[in-house]
């Protein structure tokens, strides 16, 4: 029971790290980026390939799994995404789903379509027993890393100058620009960090979620659920939504497997009908 809860929390934390970048880009530029999962997949493949081909240990690949997708994100934002912001939502979707298709087929071509298996180092295998509760070592690692990241993000957003600029830009980009904040730079940086976090999430989650070229399509819906249910105006909203989704999913699969994802979708439709801005969102300023 508690073990399941812990697994659910770990799963939810992963989803949060994967989706938080999407929440920020959506809140900031009102851009529905369906291709967010592609950056997560990039991170996962960076780790897998570095471990397999170059023999670099797992922990050492994680910074790269953050950096490379972040650079990729920054370049893509500058070259591809920026002209899109002023377009209607439908074009955002058709554009980013096109990117997803290209990423899926591209990875398929370069690496192959098989499921990648990540070999965890020995010290992450096995589990502890604390008071009768089995806790997987790797799950614990995930939870700790994600908690630290969440703390750092919260600190950056709430305490630093960049964070207050970002929050100002999210609330009202025009007024923020009028106050001398370079909204474009803020956004580029945020997009890059969001992509990097997604990459890190993809690397960490390769063992839990699985990794194959269809990753962006498979988890796109989950990211969108996290973002839409959690709302885009806070960072705690998506966190709570991700935890809820992770726990509901793990419990649902364990106790009522015949219902499948039914519970998750029903819950989502009900929540969104009740609060269209998300559980913790407030009405957009625009």
């Amino acid at each position, binding site marked *: 029971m508690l073990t399941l809860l812990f697994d659910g929390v770990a799963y939810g934390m992963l989803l949060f790290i994967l989706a938080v970048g999407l929440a920020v880009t959506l809140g900031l530029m009102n851009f529905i980026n369906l291709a967010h999962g592609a950056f997560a997949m990039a991170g996962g493949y960076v780790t897998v390939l570095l471990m397999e081909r170059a023999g670099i240990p797992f922990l050492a690949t994680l910074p790269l799994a953050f950096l490379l997708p972040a650079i990729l994100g920054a370049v893509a934002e500058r070259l591809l995404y920026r002209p899109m912001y002023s377009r209607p939502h439908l074009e955002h979707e058709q554009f980013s*789903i096109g990117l997803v298709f290209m990423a899926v087929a591209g990875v398929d071509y370069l690496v192959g379509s098989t499921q990648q298996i990540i070999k965890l180092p020995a010290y992450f295998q096995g589990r502890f027993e604390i008071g009768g509760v089995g806790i997987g070592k790797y799950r614990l690692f995930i939870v700790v890393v994600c908690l630290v990241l969440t703390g750092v993000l919260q600190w950056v957003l709430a305490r630093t100058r960049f964070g207050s600029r970002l929050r100002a830009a999210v609330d009202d980009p025009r007024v923020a620009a009028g106050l001398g904040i370079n909204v474009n730079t803020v956004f580029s940086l945020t997009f890059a960090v969001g992509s990097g976090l997604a990459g890190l999430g993809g690397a960490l989650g390769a063992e839990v979620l699985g990794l194959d070229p269809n990753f962006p399509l498979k988890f796109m819906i989950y990211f969108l659920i996290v973002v839409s249910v959690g709302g885009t105006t806070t960072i705690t909203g998506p966190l709570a939504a991700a935890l809820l989704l992770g726990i509901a999913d793990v419990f649902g699969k364990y106790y009522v497997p015949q219902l499948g994802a039914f519970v998750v979708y029903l819950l989502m439709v009900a929540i969104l009908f009740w609060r269209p801005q998300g559980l913790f969102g407030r009405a957009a300023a625009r």
Partner: protein
Amino acid sequence: MKATATAAGGAAASLASAARWKPWEWALLAALAASWFAVGNAHALIANEIAILALFALSLDLILGYAGIVSLGHAAFFGIGAYGAALFAKHVMPDPLAGMAVAIALAAVLGAASSVLVMRGSDLARLMITLGVAAILYELANKLEFTGGADGLQGVVIAPLLGRFAFDLYGRVAFAYSLVVLVVAILVARRIVASPFGWSLRAIRDNRLRAAAIGLNVDARLAVAYTIAAAMAGAAGALQAQTSSFASLDTLDFHRSADVMLVVVIGGAGWLWGGVVGAIAFKLLHSLLSAWTPQYWVFWLGLFLVVLTMVGRERLFRPWTWFRKGRRS
């Protein structure tokens, strides 16, 4: 729409001219009719698929292009039409036209019921709710007894059309049936779009607040439009089930909603013939690319979408404007 009317009389005239049948529309209708003779036995099955996809895309275009409701779960109505028609044929009566009526009614009821859900919130919430409704139906069809689960609904026997034309192996009767339903749907949709109701939908799409301010009941109109589109999608689903004597989970799958969205996007949203053009282009693109690179064809589809969005449809299909500087569409 291009004419800028200065007086009320001018506005009425421009509305009337937009509703008038253009020569090229007659030509397209004639081409649709002629296509039945052109395809022969060899291509009737694929032509039937295109006709069904075109009808499905037309229904999505009504809410996406005209009413501005972004939906990623339009397959819900396609699926309920397919399962409705198949179950009706299996348990009640095998007549295809009666089954079609039942499927349309079922889809319309679901559309009216779920229209309440899509009225609220932002585009993202709407996207997720439509997607969620389709996913819920998918899970239901997967788990329920009478839908046959993952195997699909088998053993459906459809009686001959009008009691005379049995569905043949080559799909010629099937194609004729789908074509007639498609043409009827186009005529109905055209009538709706050219009516004051259709214009009010466009007003709502362009600016909901202002539309409400001039006295339109926005929610009621969107609900009616959503229900009509659902009914049409149900008809497309019924065609699919009846012409293949089979209803499967595939009819409710996410990729079907995404595909039909692509069809509308390729053909052009907010243009009735866009569904037909898009369906033909999509199927041709699909079969050409997958024949060329079976495994990687989605890459080229993705590239096509990205280029289409970045360059813009207006420019992409008018090569002579490529090297002209200045105003972007």
